[in-house]
């Protein structure tokens, strides 16, 4: 899922305090999974912001909504009526949702309420970890199902740097497994360590964000 976290509350309050009435919008998809922008979080953040603004003597009304998918136009449309009442929107969906609202409801200002930072899985309750970096040239088939692009701090493709710790953790973060250690162990378990001795040449990053903003057309789906 796309992972996001609340921005510092001070930053949000600072943005909202110049407004009169604000619509706080969540999304029930990825950001709900990562407990940052679902309905629960909308209903947590709204009272918190109201309390904070009131305490600073700003009288701002905050109304709320949560869309099933903030990145799909048909759902975005559902906000039209509420948006007509407000002079600003704060979205706690990922950056895609924020932009969908900004595009649909121009010229109403839309603030991001979260920082979108990774593509993660929920490893266990309350613990999310990166899994993919949308590199545009997936190599999971050669790395035994572990992604070194997203999970190695240096995105190394030919094996671990010299920094793997004694306990198999990454030199950059003692809480995070060195993904190359995982790759090597799984390869070894499957008796296929040899397959990792093959040189992986410099990666072509052009199908990722490095190639410029992505734009894809599928003729079969065009109308």
């Amino acid at each position, binding site marked *: 899922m796309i992972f996001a976290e609340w921005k*510092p*509350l*001070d930053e949000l*309050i600072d943005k909202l305090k110049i407004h009169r009435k604000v619509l706080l919008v969540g999304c029930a998809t990825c950001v709900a999974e990562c407990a940052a922008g679902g309905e*629960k979080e909308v*209903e*947590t953040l709204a*009272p*918190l912001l*109201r*309390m*904070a603004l*009131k*305490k600073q003597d700003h009288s701002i009304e905050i109304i709320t909504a949560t869309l099933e998918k903030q990145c799909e136009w048909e759902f975005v449309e559902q906000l039209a009526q509420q948006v007509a009442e407000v002079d600003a929107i704060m979205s706690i969906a990922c950056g895609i949702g924020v932009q969908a609202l900004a595009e649909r409801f121009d010229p109403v200002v839309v603030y991001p309420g979260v920082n979108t930072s990774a593509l993660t899985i929920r490893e266990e309750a309350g613990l999310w970890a990166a899994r993919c970096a949308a590199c545009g040239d997936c190599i999971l088939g050669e790395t035994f199902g572990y992604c070194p692009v997203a999970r190695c701090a240096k995105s190394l493709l030919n094996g671990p740097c010299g920094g793997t710790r004694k306990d198999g953790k990454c030199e950059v973060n003692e809480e995070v497994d060195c993904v190359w250690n995982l790759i090597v162990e799984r390869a070894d378990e499957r008796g296929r360590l040899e397959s990792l001795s093959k040189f992986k040449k410099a990666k072509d990053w052009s199908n990722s964000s490095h190639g410029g903003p992505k734009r894809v057309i599928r003729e079969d789906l065009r109308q």
Partner: protein
Amino acid sequence: MSDGNQQPGQEPEVVLLYCQHGLCHEAKGSAWYQECAGLSIRAIMMPCSSKIEVSYILKLLESGADAVEVVACPEKSCKYLVGSLRAERRIEYVRGLLEKIGYAPERVGISRKLSQSPVQLMDLARARADAVRSFGINPMKKGE
């Protein structure tokens, strides 16, 4: 430190959220908390403290409660095993949020107790009230 207006003499309004196992058998079913009139206390029974959402507590504060006291089962006796532990973590989280917006984290607290008599529950609420008295009334009450 004060996060609100000091108004001596005004009794803090405390919401007591208690797990059903937090109240002793004898008192169940009775409107026990009315026995302690004079204190501004609202008591709400929950099936399990783990049902207490962060948003719920914030809503109570938003609507003017000066303090919220959660009564959860002690770790070992929680009927839903980790329910009360979860409640405790959420309370910690709410306290952190309050601190960030300049509200006294003491406005929310949790006690881990089982089978409390009405008087004991009332004492917990009173202790919470005492803990917040110096912070004044909840700023949300201003200009109501």
